[in-house]
């Protein structure tokens, strides 16, 4: 049995799963210290399920703590950023293009050194020990402990980053170091940004992971503990102490993965209807379809993997205007429970329409009894038409697909959606995020620039698949369950024929889970 927890800005949700079955679920408020909210949620699910702490094999946790820290510019340490790649990039030091406030938060400690590699494997410049040591001495003098290192084409040849790490480590044993090739793909500025943010968060990561761990121990849970990352896979919680940046934007991914498990569908459209927006995502082979645009975190470009989500301004709190012909995008949001008509307020919202039509019982139906039925039917039709239109844009093919409705606003859908082969509104959909965290797998990824001229395509894919698989096993995957989840090839133009940016992702179940069942007690 396992427990999934989602620590959001407002709510801390928890679920207890026995195999695939949701045995208990709860929603608690997130507390300022985070851990007491977690303890409260754990108390509820353990009591509801009536199971002993010892039969919990693993806890999986999704959190927005690190994203929020970057967005709000808090808990960030000063970082010494070392870039290797001169003479290229001269005049474009680390933090170029950053918003001023967060650039200041990380201090003024940027270093650029000659070195690195070219696309064809030739050295870009010679990396000299004397240069490295000069930088290390300065970092030690400034007493900076968080360090990031990024080198040109390091995803293909990380040697310069590793070499500098050894020098820093030798001179400053307590330094916390992020190597860019461990975090990102090709694109040195974005990869370096990710490494710097990661280093800035390392101290905070220690406190957060310790606080999570303490909450589990206080509740008598000594099992393994994982934290979810943005591509829908899990990291060992101890790993997060070194890679907090990998948790950025794991929320939408967990929501989609939770919907997948709640319905048993690997391919579906997932519509998460909240108070203000509806977020539409696509599950393909059990994983969210990824977005391809440059992702900014707190105004900083990164190259993290994020799900492709289409958000439209339609939710339970959306304002209804124009005799029901216009719904949203303005919304009363979380004030729905005071401002909506059925709650005694003065604002006509999408929720009021559903109650007036007798399709849901929230608030006080008598407040909307006198509504013009034509406005109600026009409004309800408009809601479904908006979703039909948005889903049509996201749907991967012309064939109808299952549509999974999750979130508090799912009741807004009062007739069958056009694009849906079937519609599912599973039980526990309100805690889909926590379920998504609980059922997540572990993965490994690798990206290289390869030449199909010197290495045939199948051979190159096989070689990278082996590396991705090894990374997944290192992350805790059961080797027997590993499959290659994604192979992505991008041709590189103006280069020698057959030069391709090749990326392979492997995923598998967590090794050694699923031995306890509820009956074992």
């Amino acid at each position, binding site marked *: 049995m396992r427990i999934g927890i989602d620590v959001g800005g407002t709510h801390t949700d928890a679920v207890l799963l026995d195999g695939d079955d949701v045995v208990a679920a709860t929603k608690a408020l997130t507390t300022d210290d985070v851990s007491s909210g977690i303890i409260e949620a754990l108390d509820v699910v353990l009591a509801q399920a009536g199971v002993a702490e010892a039969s919990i094999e693993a806890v999986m946790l999704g959190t927005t703590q690190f994203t929020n820290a970057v967005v709000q510019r808090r808990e960030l340490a000063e970082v010494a950023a070392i870039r290797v*790649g001169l*003479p*290229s*990039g*001269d*005049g*474009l030091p680390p933090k*170029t*293009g950053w918003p001023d406030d967060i650039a200041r938060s990380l201090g003024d400690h940027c270093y650029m050194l000659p070195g690195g590699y*070219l*696309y*064809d494997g*030739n050295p*870009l*410049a010679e990396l000299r020990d004397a240069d490295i040591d000069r930088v290390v001495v300065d970092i030690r003098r400034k007493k900076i402990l968080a360090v990031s290192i990024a080198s*040109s*084409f390091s995803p293909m040849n990380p040697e310069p980053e590793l070499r500098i790490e050894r020098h820093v480590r030798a001179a400053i044993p307590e330094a916390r170091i992020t190597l860019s090739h461990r975090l990102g793909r*090709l*694109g*040195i*500025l974005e990869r370096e940004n990710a490494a710097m943010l990661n280093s800035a968060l390392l101290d905070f990561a220690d406190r957060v992971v310790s606080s999570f761990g303490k909450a589990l121990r206080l509740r008598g849970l000594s099992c393994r503990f994982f934290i979810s990352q943005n591509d829908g896979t899990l990291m060992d919680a101890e790993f997060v102490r070194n890679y907090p940046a990998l948790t950025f934007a794991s929320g939408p991914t967990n929501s989609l993965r939770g919907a997948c498990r709640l319905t048993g569908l690997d391919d579906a459209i997932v519509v998460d209807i909240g108070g203000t927006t509806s977020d539409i995502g*696509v599950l393909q082979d059990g994983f969210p*379809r990824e977005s*391809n*645009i*440059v992702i900014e975190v707190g105004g900083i*470009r990164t190259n993290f993997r994020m799900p*492709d989500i*289409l958000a439209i301004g339609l939710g339970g709190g959306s304002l209804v205007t124009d005799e029901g012909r216009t719904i949203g995008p303005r919304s009363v949001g979380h004030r729905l429970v005071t401002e909506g008509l059925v709650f005694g307020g003065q604002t006509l919202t999408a929720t009021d329409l559903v109650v007036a039509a007798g399709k849901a019982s929230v608030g006080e139906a008598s407040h909307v009894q006198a509504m013009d039925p034509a406005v109600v039917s026009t409004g309800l039709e408009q809601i479904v038409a908006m979703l039909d*239109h948005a889903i*049509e*844009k*996201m*749907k*991967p*093919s*012309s064939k109808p697909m299952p549509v999974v409705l999750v979130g508090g606003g799912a009741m807004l859908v009062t007739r069958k959606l056009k694009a849906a082969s079937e519609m599912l509104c599973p039980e526990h959909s309100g805690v889909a995020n926590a379920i998504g965290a609980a059922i997540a797998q572990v993965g490994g990824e690798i990206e290289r620039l390869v030449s199909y001229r010197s290495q045939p395509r199948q051979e190159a894919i096989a070689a990278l698949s082996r590396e991705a698989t090894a990374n997944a096993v290192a992350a805790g995957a059961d080797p027997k369950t590993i499959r290659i989840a994604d192979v992505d090839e*991008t*041709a*590189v*133009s*103006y*280069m*020698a*024929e*057959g*030069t*391709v*940016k090749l990326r392979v992702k492997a995923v598998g179940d967590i090794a050694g889970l699923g031995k306890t069942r509820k009956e074992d007690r």
Partner: protein
Amino acid sequence: MRLGVHDLPDLSLGAVFLATGGGGDPYVARLVAEKALQEFGPAEIIDPDDLADDAYVVTLGGVGAPTVSLELLPSVTDAGRTLAAFEAHVGRKVDAVVSFEIGGGNSLLPIVAAVERGIPVVNGDGMGRALPEAQMMTYPICGVRPTPAVARDYEGNIATFATSSIFTYERQIRSYAQASGGMITACEHPMTGRELKASIVPRTISFSIEIGRILREYRGNAHSIIEPLGEAFARSIYGQFRHLYTGKVVDVQSRIIGGYDIGAATIEAFDRNLPPLRVDIKNEYLVARMDDRVLASVPDLITILDYETSTPINAERLRYGQRVSVFGVGCPEHYRSPQALAVVAPRCFGFDFDYVPLEDLALPS
């Protein structure tokens, strides 16, 4: 006209629109231009008509694989030092610089060199869009010789060229770029003010800023920008502006042949009331057709925008599942002469049909 740091976001956004899928992400070039403008002040953008007939002008830009620049970053000094190396090679001062192509990052590099050297940039370029090879620029089409030319790599190594033909020059500089880390800066096509006025696609810098401003101000659903973009193109040197198609990318195939990203994207209408649209790619979007009926083809411009935000999407970022709108724009008249079509018509890219101007092709019903 003065061009300052605050103009760069619009200029580079407009440059992605006019890049017709090619030219690479101008983000890094924009950072370089920002640094240069901050250090040296605004650039003087001079109208081609205001240039003296005997002025000495040279083109400047990057040659190579835009993808390589993601790792082999440009330096802020690359453009200025390449210009200095050119002047040393030819033994005379340059009066103004001008862009190879307005599409992508090459719209910005001449600005970087010019502010450092304190000389003006001519408002215009040699393509009015992006295209993959040197002989496709309007300068050589109008008879300007490519050499003497100077190329400089990231390390400061210099190569000089004196070639008999533009085709030889294109082959040689391309292989020099491949041997030098994949991306170099080049100064080429020296010419007089008189030659420039006869060959330049005029005022594309200011026009690119205008397109970028429209994309920013009308940011939103692609249908909402059809009208303002149409009005802007109607006032320009470009031909007709047309919405060709809106739908979802259902397939993207690409492979590298001879150094170029060759492929095709298939787009299906949201409601499938039209046959799918196929867009052929050779770095740029070259041909848009529906059931083998051509809707637009090179040298006319084909641009793909993200449907929700109207952000132009270049070919390397085009992916399965994206919601997009496809637009066609008639090219500047420069590309409709027999001499121009001899190097930029669809057959020059391996297609088996003749060029028909956009406005003479039927729209999808």
